[in-house]
């Protein structure tokens, strides 16, 4: 009992509560109480950031943060803050900050904001919980909660298109959740559900029940692959683009797709372990799947004329980098995968912020309408460029660091064709991003003025709450690329994680 109340065991719970409680309070906030809502949001974020910093310090000092309550037989609810969780938590907390500010600006004056921010906070809580989950059952729990809390955000606009997208989203994610549950249950019946362990815990059972382990793996990857948007389970993602921009940003950069990717990392490294995965011949198919996703989604992105849809397909492609890195099953590739989790988040959130800014400020949704944007909104366009170039892998934006590590990792494990794949993907990325930049910077603005022009007489090119988050994340994605060598950078932290994962 005493172990329940030490600060190290309570910290994970507090981190979840720091967004959950404000979220619930926000639900109860009247619509017009804007200040109160903002205050609640900001307090939650501030507390969360402080707690995360505390945990970050603790974990690097070697402390363990573990909270456990009984739930199912031999599968308790465990929250466990380790280095990998912190990577994800830090990302989601920081991006929560940016996205909340952005959303406040974005939704100014629109109805149902209390509901929106309530679910928004729930969504972050679920994401953080998912990151802190200490075993598969806990992970599953938060995985489903995430689905539930994001759905209201996807359909927030409440238009028929939004509802359609929401239905598709649910069909996919709940289906995926079910598959995941089957996989988890199957695995539980084979090896029960201990905590995530570096190097996995199934190795002992591999002789007796290889078929079961393989099927469980397939089920879980299929379940996680829905959220991670692996082809052919990806098509909810582009459709979910009807959601408001902050939601798209959150879906793509932090919460949903990352939850899937994070889950894949957990399953491969901490449940099965690299060795067992290789023995069961599981990593190679996963690798192919990731490869197919990368190329397919990139090609599809080329054909999209809607900015957000193009970004969505880009997400599909980029998230499979993470899967790719995991499936390569080598330490360097693992670093690439884990660091890309953060890098892609930062860059993609920037892109969505900017796309939202275009839509909000000038009513621009299509690629063709982007001509001359750089003149009207140079800052946003600059942030957009940083994100886009990062996606292509142009240094020194963060993306190239991931790419280098993935490539090196592929060569390390003797899969040189992956380098070719990365090259091809980079080319395709360039093919669908550069035209946007071209139009933005070098196109001619419409002769008869913009079709709509909000914020014309503002101090900045758009509402400051819309602009600042974009600039902030763009700057971050630059900085984490430039200062990748520092210990506190995502890269440094990823190497720290991997050094633990592959210690044995």
């Amino acid at each position, binding site marked *: 009992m005493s172990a329940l109340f030490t600060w190290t065991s309570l910290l994970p719970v507090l981190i979840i509560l720091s967004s959950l409680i404000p979220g619930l309070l926000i639900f109860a906030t009247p619509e017009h109480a804007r200040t109160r809502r903002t205050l609640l949001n900001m307090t939650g974020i501030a507390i969360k950031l402080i707690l995360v910093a505390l945990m970050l310090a603790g974990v690097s000092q070697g402390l363990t943060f573990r909270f456990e309550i009984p739930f199912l037989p031999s599968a308790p609810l465990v929250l466990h803050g380790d280095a990998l969780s912190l990577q994800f938590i830090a990302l989601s907390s920081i991006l929560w900050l940016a996205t909340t500010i952005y959303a406040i600006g974005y939704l100014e004056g629109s109805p149902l904001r209390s509901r929106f921010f309530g679910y928004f906070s729930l969504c972050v809580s679920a994401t953080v919980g998912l990151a802190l989950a200490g075993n598969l059952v806990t992970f599953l729990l938060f995985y489903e909660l995430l689905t539930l809390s994001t759905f209201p955000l996807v359909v927030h606009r409440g238009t028929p298109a939004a509802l*359609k997208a929401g*239905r*598709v989203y649910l*069909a996919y994610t709940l289906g995926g959740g079910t598959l995941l549950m089957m996989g988890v249950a199957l695995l539980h019946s084979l090896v029960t559900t201990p905590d995530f362990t570096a190097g996995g815990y199934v190795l002992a059972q591999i002789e007796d029940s290889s078929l079961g382990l393989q099927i469980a793996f397939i089920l879980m990857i299929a379940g996680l692959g829905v959220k991670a948007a692996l*082809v*052919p389970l*990806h*098509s909810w993602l582009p*459709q979910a683009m009807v959601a408001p921009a902050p939601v798209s940003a959150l879906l793509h950069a932090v919460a949903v797709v990352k939850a899937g990717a994070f889950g894949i990392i957990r399953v491969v490294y901490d449940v099965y372990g690299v060795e067992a995965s290789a023995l069961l011949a599981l990593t190679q198919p996963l690798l192919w799947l990731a490869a197919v996703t990368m190329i*397919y989604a990139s*090609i*599809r992105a*080329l*054909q999209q004329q809607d900015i957000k849809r193009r970004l969505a397909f880009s997400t599909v492609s980029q998230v499979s980098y993470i899967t790719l890195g995991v499936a390569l099953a080598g330490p*360097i590739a693992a670093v690439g995968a884990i660091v890309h989790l953060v890098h892609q988040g930062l860059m993609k959130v920037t892109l969505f912020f900017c796309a939202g800014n275009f839509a909000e400020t000038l009513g621009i949704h299509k690629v063709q309408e982007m001509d001359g944007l*750089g003149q009207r909104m140079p800052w946003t366009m600059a942030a957009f460029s940083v994100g886009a*170039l990062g996606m*292509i*892998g*142009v*240094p*020194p934006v963060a993306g*190239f*660091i991931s*790419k*280098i590590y993935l*490539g*090196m990792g592929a*060569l*390390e494990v003797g899969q*040189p064709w992956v*380098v*070719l794949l*990365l*090259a091809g993907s*980079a*080319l395709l990325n*360039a*093919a*669908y991003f*550069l035209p946007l930049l071209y139009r933005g*910077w*070098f196109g*001619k603005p419409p002769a008869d003025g913009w079709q709509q022009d909000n914020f014309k007489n503002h101090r900045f090119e758009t509402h400051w709450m819309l602009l600042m988050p974009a600039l902030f994340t763009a700057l971050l994605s630059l900085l984490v*690329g*430039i*200062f*990748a*060598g*520092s210990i506190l*950078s995502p*890269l440094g932290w990823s190497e720290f994680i991997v050094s633990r994962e592959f210690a044995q």
Partner: protein
Amino acid sequence: MSLSFLWLTVPLTPLLILLILISFPRSLARLTPWLWLSCLPALLVAVMPPDSFRPGILWPGASWGGSEMLVTSWLGLTAGLWAGAGAYAASSMSGSKHLLRFWLFWLLALSGNLLLIIAQDALSFYVGFSMMSLSAYGLVIHTGTSAARRAGRLYLQLAVLGEVLLLSGILMQAHAAQGSFMFSDWHNAPLQPLTALTVLAGLGLKAGFWPLHVWLPLAHPAAPAPASAVLSGAMIKAGIFGIWIFLPNFAVPDVATPSGWTLADWSEAAMLTGLFSAFYGVALGLTRTDAKQVLAYSSVSQMGYLLFILGLSWQLSVQRETLLVVLLVYAVHHGVAKAALFLSADLLKSGRPNSRLQSVILVSGLLFPALALCGLVFSSGAAAKAGLKDVLENAAMLDWLPWLQVGAVTSTILLTRACYLLFNLQEKAKAEPIPRQRLLIWASMSMAPVLLPWLWSPMNQALQKTLAVYKLVELSWPIALGLVIAIFVIWRRWQLPVFLAHMNNPFLRYSMRFTRRSKKALLPAFDVSLSTKRFRAAERRMNRYWQGGTVNRSAALLVGFMLVAAVFMLVL
């Protein structure tokens, strides 16, 4: 206290200035005349290189520095060219639109170009290289004309391709070097032919020799003159520079690949390609009627020579030091001269000389670099050519020598045509005096081919060797022959067939086709549609059937269920 942090200022100064420009866009007009100062730190460290700098918190393995001649002189050349062109551009671009955009790209490209030179590891090089290549796109299409946009598209496509190839090469070589990105480690690592090929292709696309030159004759004419000057003078050289440091000729036996392949095996092919490129550039250049295009083709031709030297260096590892000097001399020489020539394309359009002195300056300023490029005695060209010849002679590779002579002749013919076309520009020039500032900068750059041999020791040493009379004759007769042929042609007013002038670059078409194709639906979408319409009728029937008679139907189902269960319970 170590001054190594000075290396940091080399790429950062332009970026810092860039930030200032962004922050105070309104004072752009006041700042532009001073922008060339951003190259000062680079020039400074080129003169007095401190210890190399390893910023631990940058990307892994980042290391900037280099005190050897290669880096310092290349840095000096690059910084000088950028400074000169920058100062020139401050004047020449002053009236144009999107000035801020131009300078932003300019400074970014500058920063990248400087960074790639001082990089001691592949990643830093790659960072600089990417910054430079992509920013240069902004310079290429600055004018916004359709030609510029077409050229820009092709340039960008190939630049990205080149970068990707380069990155693949870097990855493979870093893997061979146990994960290290330091060039110093690479030199002890085995080199795979595939790695070599990708690096060669990636950097070659920048260097612009045949057959990777396709973008070059389009991009140079499209860009504003100062941009063309740095493009041709500094940026394409970065490709050569890169090849030199990426593909060393240290054919150390114990790091050879298992197959026994070394870079030397490709040496002859590279030299042949280089020579072909030299003649190809001339041949194509002669068909052009635009001065800048001709100059661009001349660059293709000259890059061929540089490739020739590179190829040679792979074979003659023992003479690496000598060859390095030759390469440096050649690169500096060509960079300076070509930059001056490109600038003149703008200068001659900008106005008419208003005094005899100006006319003299104009003519000589045009002729010096042109003739230097042909290999005029006492100029940098002579130093370069002679150095190359010496190496060949020392290595007893005399078969190649005649080709160099022929090359000199053809170069002369091409440059004569270039000068001819440049002078023709004067006819279209505005009827106003040439801005003095531009003239001054241009003139000082034009003099460089002549002055440099006396100021810069490596070139001076190379030039010293040409001072024997027979050497002077040997250097001069091809120029003379070329001039004679050219003057004869001009005198007889021979015209090239028109179709040649209108011969289009097929790659433009490919580029367009690629762009269009990429927008078409190539792959099917796996989108699900949740439609119930099809089942609606059947559903209605079902509903009607089950609607009435709950009791009867339940009883029937009860009996039916009992029957089934009875079969299971009693019969089975």
